[in-house]
């Protein structure tokens, strides 16, 4: 492609090169000019946001009241409301029904037997789809029993069964409200942005104060984290419903309520299920962090195992989380599909119509009754559990002892030729210049509104005194996103073009997303030592998924007519890919990169656990010192970075789409 650059492109190129040069020599330059304030934000100019936030939080928790009802009184009441169904679920699945409290409690009825629970999910699988699904979820639950994860898994399952309906249902209601009232949508949109981008660690401490200690706080934190995608997808799905269907509903004389719940929501149900899937995945993502504030269950097992450096046990508990995620997700998908179909009911007795329910109820009663004589029916016998623990520890040891030098060489190569140069440039750019460039970029990509947003947000980061840490954050995320894109996009294209590879890649991506990153973080530390490179690996592994998914989706959805047109004009396979598939998929790929950036940023708090020195670490320190203001200030800075990146990439994607005529 020979095309002379327009003067506008030339200016952009020159500015980019100038910024890089400025960054590379920034420190020396600032020193030579005796103007260190250019690269290091002067501490005298810092506005003490964190003290203000702490004071506001203190007031909210201790003094705030509406009349006689204090703010904490309200939050405690909410906590009580959530606690009731949770306790019921926990009793049924894990602890058994008891009278009395604490250790004085008498067991009235033990928890449901593992046989009954497994039979119930198999029956549910069969009811929702077929024997294939039944076998899959049955195998999942059998894994939990056989690998000795049953008790913890049931605690986790209980919290998932409470968090997911509240998150999905609440998200749906908020989405409907936002669809009906555009003003509400405009109000809720920035709040959703913050909910998705502020790291959970930042608001854990205030939540503990408001909702009390224990599983309920963990549930609330989980719900805050998992709900936003549901709201967004609901709004999007409702807007995307074919207007003809809407007109049809109106012609049939529906009321507003009927139109919403009988026409709109069912027509959008397919997209809505994507939201439910996201809620489930995010809920299970939170399991580890929730266990830090008292949720217990599998997350706690992972943490405790890794503290003993028992890699195998950590891995097995981690896989149990993946297995649980797969079972709950597949069941909910199938359930929604079945709800969409209308079936005529045969006029038979209740019991005849509900064979499975009757069977399970009977099984439950029988195991409870006979369980008094044979504990085997209630608890899976411990002597029959198997473990692969030693295998994983041995594998890591083998790699460590025999291949450490190679790992070291790879690490040094990446550090000195890839990561450190990026770090040097980013930390060297004078902050006034960086803010100016971001504003200009915003203006170039999306007009004055975006320019204003970029300018104000980056300036806020600077005046809160977090500039250097923010730049380390951008460096770590930027390097990870570049790597994740380089690996993820080709994988996605491969998955789209070859269905067999696609299936394998899909499984890999699902596992990477639900396997708690803490599980592989510790072996990675053993092989690569504590430091930025270890964090980079962890972030890339976690943030890979959307790059792959969106690339695959983009390549798959290129219209057949275009492909045929290419074939007719004699394109080879490579040409087809290079000149038709990839350019047409570019907007989707850009959206995938956008999501990759979001995930990379959300991973930062986890990588703080291996000793990075960025905003994630700042949030983590604030958590361990229970410093609300410090945590929220750093959390907001991360959110600002995320929002700037999101808006810029989205504006870029829109531009790309417009260029290819996909959107006007």
């Amino acid at each position: 492609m020979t095309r002379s650059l327009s003067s506008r492109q030339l200016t952009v190129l020159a500015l980019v090169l100038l910024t890089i040069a400025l960054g590379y020599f920034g420190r020396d330059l600032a020193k030579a000019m005796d103007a260190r304030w250019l690269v290091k934000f002067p501490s005298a100019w810092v506005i003490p946001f964190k003290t203000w936030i702490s004071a506001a939080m203190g007031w909210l928790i201790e003094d705030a009241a509406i009349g006689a009802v204090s703010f904490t009184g309200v939050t405690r009441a909410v906590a009580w409301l959530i606690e009731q169904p949770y306790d019921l679920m926990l009793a049924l699945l894990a602890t058994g029904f008891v009278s009395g409290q604490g250790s004085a409690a008498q067991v009235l009825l033990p928890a449901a037997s593992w046989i009954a629970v497994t039979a119930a999910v198999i029956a549910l699988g069969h009811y929702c789809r077929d024997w294939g699904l039944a076998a899959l979820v049955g195998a999942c639950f059998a894994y939990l029993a056989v690998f000795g994860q049953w008790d913890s898994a049931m605690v986790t399952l209980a919290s998932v069964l409470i968090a997911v309906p509240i998150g999905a249902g609440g998200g749906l209601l908020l989405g409907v409200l936002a669809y009906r009232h555009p003003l509400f949508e405009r109000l809720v949109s920035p709040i959703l942005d913050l909910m998705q981008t502020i790291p959970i660690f930042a608001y854990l401490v205030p939540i503990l104060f408001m909702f009390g200690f224990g599983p309920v706080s963990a549930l609330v934190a989980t719900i805050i984290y998992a709900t936003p995608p549901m709201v967004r997808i609901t709004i999007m799905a409702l807007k995307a419903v074919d207007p003809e269907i809407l007109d049809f509903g109106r012609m049939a004389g529906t009321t507003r309520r009927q139109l919403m719940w009988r026409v709109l929501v069912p027509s959008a149900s397919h997209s809505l299920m994507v939201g439910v899937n996201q809620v489930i995945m995010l809920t299970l993502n939170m399991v580890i962090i929730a266990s830090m504030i008292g949720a217990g269950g599998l997350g706690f097992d992972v943490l405790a195992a890794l503290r003993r450096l028992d890699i195998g046990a950590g891995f097995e508990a981690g896989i149990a989380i993946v297995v649980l995620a797969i079972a709950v997700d597949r069941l909910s998908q199938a359930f929604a599909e079945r709800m969409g179909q209308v079936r005529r009911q045969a006029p038979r007795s209740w019991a005849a119509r509900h064979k499975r329910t009757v069977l399970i109820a009977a099984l439950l009663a029988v195991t409870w009754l006979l369980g008094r004589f044979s504990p085997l029916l209630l608890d899976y016998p411990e002597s029959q559990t198997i473990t692969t623990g030693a295998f994983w520890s041995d594998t890591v040891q083998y790699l460590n002892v025999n291949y450490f030098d190679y790992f070291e060489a790879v690490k040094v190569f990446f550090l000195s030729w890839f990561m450190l140069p990026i770090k040097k440039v980013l930390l060297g750019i004078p902050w006034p210049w960086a803010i100016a460039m971001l504003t200009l970029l915003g203006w170039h990509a999306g007009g004055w509104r975006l320019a204003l947003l970029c300018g104000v947000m980056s300036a806020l980061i600077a005046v809160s005194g977090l500039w250097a840490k923010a730049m380390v954050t951008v460096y770590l995320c930027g390097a990870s996103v570049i790597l994740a894109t380089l690996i993820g996009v080709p994988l996605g294209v491969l998955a789209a073009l070859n269905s067999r590879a696609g299936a394998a890649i899909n499984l890999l991506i699902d596992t990477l997303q639900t396997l708690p990153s803490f599980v592989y973080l510790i072996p990675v530390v053993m092989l690569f030592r504590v430091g930025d490179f270890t964090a980079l690996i962890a972030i890339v592994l976690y943030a890979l998924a959307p790059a792959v998914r969106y690339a695959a989706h983009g390549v798959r959805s290129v219209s057949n007519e275009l492909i045929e047109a290419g074939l007719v004009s004699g394109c080879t396979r490579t040409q087809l890919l290079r000149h038709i598939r990839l350019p047409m998929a570019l907007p989707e790929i850009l959206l995938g990169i956008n999501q990759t950036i979001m995930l990379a940023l959300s991973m930062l708090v986890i990588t703080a656990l291996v000793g990075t020195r960025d905003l994630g670490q700042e949030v983590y320190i604030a958590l361990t010192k229970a410093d609300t203001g410090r945590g929220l200030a750093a959390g907001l800075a991360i959110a600002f970075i995320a929002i700037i990146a999101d808006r810029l990439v989205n504006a870029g994607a829109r531009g790309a789409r417009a260029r290819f005529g996909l959107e006007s």
Partner: protein
Amino acid sequence: MKKKTASICALALSAMTAASAAWAVESNDPIKLTLHDWSGQLINTKIMGSILQEAGYSIEYVQADYIAQFAGLKTGDLHLAMEIWETTGREALDDATATGKVVNVGETGLMAIEEWWYPSYMKERCPGLPDWQALKECSEEFATAETAPMGRYVGGPVTWGGFDEERVEALELDFEVVHAGTDAALFAELESAYQRQDPVVLWVYVPHWAPAKYDGEFVEFPPYSAECYSDASVGVNPDLAYDCGKPRGPIWKAAWAGLQEKWPGAYGIIDAYRISNEEMSAMVGKADLDGVDIDTVVADWMSANKDRWSAWIAK
């Protein structure tokens, strides 16, 4: 099966409390004890819980984060935390007691030691150890590609404090301090180096399972004194503070301020409770290295020390 033993225990306990109605307890509400994610703390807490149960109190274990638990202790959602380390938790504990909503119930009898630690095989490569002067001579032995020619010292998470950067400067050691983000990452470094018999020097603390699993010892720095930290002129380096080792200190028990009022008897037992480093190290070793179930370890201690804990209850 944990649940089964727990229910059997509860049954046995209810039978016992019925028999010995002489031990009337002030309130039947459960006393909530916090559990963290390291075995020593689990053992310590479960022993305390078992003793309280023996005394007729109803108890409940709640999983909680080490620092975040203070939020719960202040509001009375949680009642007792058994391990607040002088070295890592003192700041949070002082903050909490200053509000008047949390009280320090005194020492557990455990002494925390935190210091630079190296595996024994390093003595061959750096013969002067454990004296700290030796580190000056052979800092290059501890170097890695990233830190060379400086040695590499793996410190604890930033939140643990410890003043290692200051120590390195004050004692003129050619070391670079690298912070591990968590306890798990810290000991993963040790495990990895130990498997390869590679050089390593890092922050280790006791009571912990690591000194039992790996053969090695603490570096001997000039002994800690409060003046050494606060006054630059004291110590080896006349111009800088922190030219000595780290302080050693007790592990405290912390409780919700209302506990004494609601369960005065229980408060007395908690106050009397003492356990030693040796006992704890042995139990942690059993649990983490030999794979013995924590409940079994606790039950063994309870049956072996019946006289001791009976005396605490009788007080």
